[in-house]
């Protein structure tokens, strides 16, 4: 039994999951109806549904980010790519004679996603071909991208009146939020493709030692192109959901700082920024922790000036609990306790 517990505690997802449960409990105390999920107007309605729906964009971006980080890279441009995708889609819908028709929305979404592929290839080119450090390479698009989005929207917030587009962000299918379904599909595809094929292993090997994996015959360059393009693609999907959520493209604010949330989700999920081994399930838990944290702030009524400190405290605790040094110290403490207990047993 205790061996099972020890293995459970040693699992890298143990502390993030505990943190998630603690946050749930805090919410439950502050607001007893927290877990209540009802059906309203034919769709699911409740705090948990909100957490899933609002957390979907962060999760989608974090999935792409996980693969990038596994190659020892980082993608800072995701927020800007999200803003561009939203701006492109909204300006196409606004410019069309029938903003409400599904065909228009399909065209807008497709064009936005195609543009994101180009942006991803650009990032991949800078990193894989020119050999620029990922943090610098993607910083270029991070700063320039928002400017591009501003140019597309001409500095205005573009409000669209298009029910099919709006459904992407706030619609429901069989009672489940469409955003959540999209996130589940992205997550499922990423997990299947990288874990059911050797792709995931190649990504990890490039992250652990690019030179050794190249000599072993892994085509690192192509792989980097793939992960950065996938990351931009995920960012564009998230950007479309974020934009559709309010039915308005806001080039200044769509996906602002979402790259930091996504990186945080990946790190909370136990994937090291040094590259190598990654965990998509960990990223899922990380994204849920971050979104629950946001909801907790509102539910508990933490004053806005203290919000940042509260978030920082929670994240610090999770990171401390997860760090190998803390884990060693804890296990040493447990061992000493066990030894003392053993002595006690022998003496009696």
């Amino acid at each position, binding site marked *: 039994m205790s061996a099972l517990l020890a293995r459970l505690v040693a699992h890298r997802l143990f502390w993030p999951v505990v943190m998630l449960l603690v946050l749930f409990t805090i919410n439950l105390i502050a607001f007893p109806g927290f877990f209540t999920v009802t059906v*309203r107007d034919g769709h699911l*309605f409740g705090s948990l549904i909100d957490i899933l729906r609002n957390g979907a964009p962060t999760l989608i971006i974090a999935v792409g980010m996980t693969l990038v980080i596994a190659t020892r890279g980082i993608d800072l441009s995701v927020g800007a790519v999200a803003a561009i995708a939203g701006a492109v889609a909204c300006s196409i819908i606004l410019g069309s004679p029938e903003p409400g028709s599904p065909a228009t929305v399909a065209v807008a979404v497709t064009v936005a996603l195609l543009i994101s592929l180009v942006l991803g290839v650009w990032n991949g080119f800078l990193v894989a071909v020119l050999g620029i450090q990922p943090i610098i390479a993607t910083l270029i698009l991070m700063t320039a991208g928002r400017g591009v989005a501003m140019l597309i929207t001409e500095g*205005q917030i573009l409000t669209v009146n298009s029910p099919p587009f709006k459904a992407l962000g706030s619609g429901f299918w069989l009672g489940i939020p469409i955003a959540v379904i999209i996130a589940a599909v992205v997550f499922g595809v990423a997990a299947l493709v990288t874990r059911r094929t050797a792709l995931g292993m190649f990504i990890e090997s490039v992250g652990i030692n690019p030179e050794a994996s190249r000599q072993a015959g892994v085509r690192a360059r192509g792989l980097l192109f793939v992960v950065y393009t996938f990351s931009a693609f995920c960012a564009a999907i998230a950007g479309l959901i974020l934009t559709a959520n309010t039915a*308005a493209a806001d080039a200044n*604010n769509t996906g602002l700082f979402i790259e930091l949330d996504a990186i945080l989700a990946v790190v909370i999920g136990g994937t090291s920024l040094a590259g190598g081994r990654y965990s998509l399930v960990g990223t899922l838990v990380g994204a849920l922790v971050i979104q629950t944290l946001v909801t907790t702030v509102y539910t508990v009524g933490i004053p806005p000036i203290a919000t940042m400190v509260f978030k920082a405290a929670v994240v610090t605790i999770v990171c401390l609990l997860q760090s190998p040094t803390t884990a060693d110290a804890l296990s040493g403490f447990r061992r000493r306790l066990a030894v003392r207990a053993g002595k006690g047993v022998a003496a009696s």
Partner: protein
Amino acid sequence: MKKLIGIAAAGAMLVALAGCASGGAASEGPKPLDELVVGFAQVGAESGWRTANTKDIQASFEEAGIELKFSDAQQKQENQIKAIRSYIQQQVDVIAFSPVVETGWDAVLNEAKAAGIPVVLTDRAVDSKDESLYESFLGSDFIVEGEKAGAWVLEEFADATEPVEIIQLEGTTGAAPAIDRAEGFAEVIAENPNLEVVASQTGDFTRAGGKQVTEALLKSNPGVDLIYAHNDDMGLGAIEAIEAAGLVPGVDIKILTIDAVKDGMQALADGKINFIVECSPLLGKQLVEIVKQINDGETPEKRIITEETTFTQEQAIEALPDRQY
């Protein structure tokens, strides 16, 4: 290098001398309007509000027949300082600008003062101990906006016998409009003990922020009667959240916002928002008046508040067709 500094110093002295000369000329009496030159250094074009501000200022000066030199600082202070320096060199009659940030203006404003060119601040203030550095500050008073919002709530819920639950969607934490709009509102509604702000969270002035906060707060405060948003965008987000909860915005839960941008006015006309306090970017006409006063040798008021109004749903329907922003 030394040579360069020497040239720069000589240049600065020349400018100062020229400044003195023009200062002398200004005191000779009012110039005809078509000989006046005004330099305006704008922040940038970061929002629809700002674009409307720019257009209104340009149009107002054209209408008054006064030449306007315009520059766009693209949200960078150094660009704005460069623009102001170039206006000083060109010896314009008045310099007006919306400071990008509050601090760091003393040096360039002293140069303008030394050159005898009066400076007018628009829309945003500077944080300087020396008030003689500028003639006048023309802009909105955010506290008054909060008070106007509070006054509407007092009237709307005047005969409420039960407590009225209010959710406040604050602007970006620490931003002047967020602090002042909360302050003015709180002061006024304190008059009626039935009015209670049950929750107050920041929505960062964005639609997405307003929506997410409202979603969460509607669940923990199901009895809410009114949402007070510090800008239209957060109010528009709140509308989405209320509709998703199966309620009718403007009826089940009343909404009160500040700004009166076009999308907000549309929602007001559609009955989804109940009342909007205007925060107007249209201060061109008042700026022209100040320039004329300075030209006539009068001293304009140190603090001039933008002419602003409030909108009910009926007024929004009337005003919407000629709304510029």
